[in-house]
């Protein structure tokens, strides 16, 4: 399957040439879950704090499907 990934804030350093929110595509084996994508991108699991799939916050064991759009954030906040 192929998913679209967007990395934000301090996570952009895990993908050469990307900028915050700039989408790129990743091919994964069928039945992959969010944690597999994090491993694929070589991001230490403790660095991804909030993950969205299609604008919904999900857990790391959520299943992915072809065409999903995944957004990953480190700890962010403010006011």
């Amino acid at each position, binding site marked *: 399957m192929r998913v679209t990934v*967007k990395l*934000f*804030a*301090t996570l*952009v350093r895990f993908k050469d040439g990307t*900028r*915050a*929110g*700039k989408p790129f595509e990743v091919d994964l084996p069928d039945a992959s879950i969010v944690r597999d994508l994090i491993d694929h991108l070589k991001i230490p699991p403790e660095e991804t*704090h*909030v993950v*969205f799939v299609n*604008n*919904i*916050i999900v857990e790391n064991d959520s299943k992915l499907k072809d065409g999903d759009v995944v*957004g990953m*954030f*480190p*700890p*962010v*906040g*403010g*006011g």
Partner: protein
Amino acid sequence: MARKILRINMSTLKAAYEDVPEKWARWAGRGLTSAITCDEVDPLCHPLGPNNKLVIAPGWVTGTPAAPSSGRTSFGGKSPLTGGIKESNAGGLSGQMIAKLGLGAIIIEGTPAKGKWYTLVVSKDGVKFEDAADLLGKGMYEVDEVLWKKYPKTAVIGIGQAGEMKLSNAGISVNDPENKPGRYAGRGGMGAVMGARGVKAMVIIDTGGPGVDIVDKELFKQGRRKLTESIQEHGLTKKAGGLNAFGTAVLVNILNEAGGLPTRNFSAGQFEGAAKISGEAMAELCEKRGGEGMMGHGCHPGCIIKCSNIIPDENGNAVASCVEYETTWALGANCGIDELDYIAKMTRECNDIGLDTIEAGNTVAIAMEGGLLKFGDAEGALATFDEIRKGTPLGRILGQGVEATAKAFGVSRVPVVKHQSMPAYEPRAVKGIGVTYATTPMGADHTAGYTIAPEIAGVSGKLDPLSNEGKAELSLTFQAATAFIDSTGYCLFIAFPILDIAKGWEGMAESVAGVTGQNITGADVVPIGKEVLKMERLFNERAGFTAEDDRPPEFMLNEALPPHNVKWTITNEQLDSVFAWVHDGHAA
């Protein structure tokens, strides 16, 4: 030396020190401004009339040595915008200096002779009333500069032209370490309350002040250490963490991703230009342009989070500090504007004229919806601020904020609660924050109970932002904890680490206990916060507020918000449950 109250009478131009009466002895910061307002301000008075007061109070730990990120100053009174009680707090230099003068609070009351304006110079020797005629009509950049020439390295509190005109969107500026305006007690029109007292500016000189008494130094040090460690350990607040590297605008992208970034006057939850106005974009801009531009700027001495920024122009010269999340959203996404340079210029206008950027951006969005200009018209949006500065009839309407502008332009999508406009989180997509907007005594205010922490940021657990479940209880708990933190003088952003790291929560309470000698532990934070909320709710009831004032605007019940296509679905009964306890044991 015990804290004193400094009472300044603008009718007689006399000031007097008073002992802190027993009934106020427990309080500082927001707790104290609200206690004094409840005791001394008639809830039915006109906010700009002779019976309103401006109450200024540093927090419990403000001015103590090395309590981290603790420089807040609370400004309280009756709000011209909401008609209810108001506490608006700011960073900058003033809190620590007022505290070091041994003052628990400054109460400004009375009205000078017509046409007379003053600069109040507050030092250990008392108050000097200086004629402010030469500062009238001037913006806060010039006011700060002029006053530092005469009184260098002092705290300057002041109002711009908006406060002089007593507009409902006038804020109170506090200077930052570079003596620039921008640390604003912005919300609720407190600048107009200061203007109504005939005070253009205040200079605080802490030289020779007695400092802050600490009753139990060991307990204070222990609390301070635990709190400092938790801030330094948490991923969000540590050095080079999210807040330090990208500022509060690190939130733009995550709210956009969640479909909760209000766009074009709350008509959508996502903005196609979000990334261009985000904290990441600001960091890139500062990196590229260099010069005076920087992220990781501290708004007051002793801050260890440093979430402020200085946005530079293309030549590297400072344009404005700080472009906050709220600011880049209000003047950006909510107006359909994706140009950071224009957002920075408008921020500078707000800082100079003395306007709350949230209300100001929402007002421009209303004017856009009403046809005065088009969504996305950055040049036109910037020009509206000159109308306010000059006090043209249009400018005076815009300076009154969202509700007045919506009436003037026939707009019915009016995102307000208690006449104050909503900040940068869409209640239909993030339900808990909507409960806070609806029920806080302050009018729509995100800082009053920041449920975004668990609903979006994954701090203190994770809750589904789209679900209604448990959101009334969640909001109340956050509102109570916030009322406590707003009384400490600590920046509200310590909430992120202390909600996740238990020793930080304990440390905050211990540091307060150490300073005051009150027996306060972590378990007391929420109950004490509820006492503050109760005072404020009862003031509002006496001012005429009812349950009907605890409601989101009608359009949020009728219009589905993309991309999730959700409406406001929390019931009025759930909203009314948030503060039902205020009347426990009493007739409602």
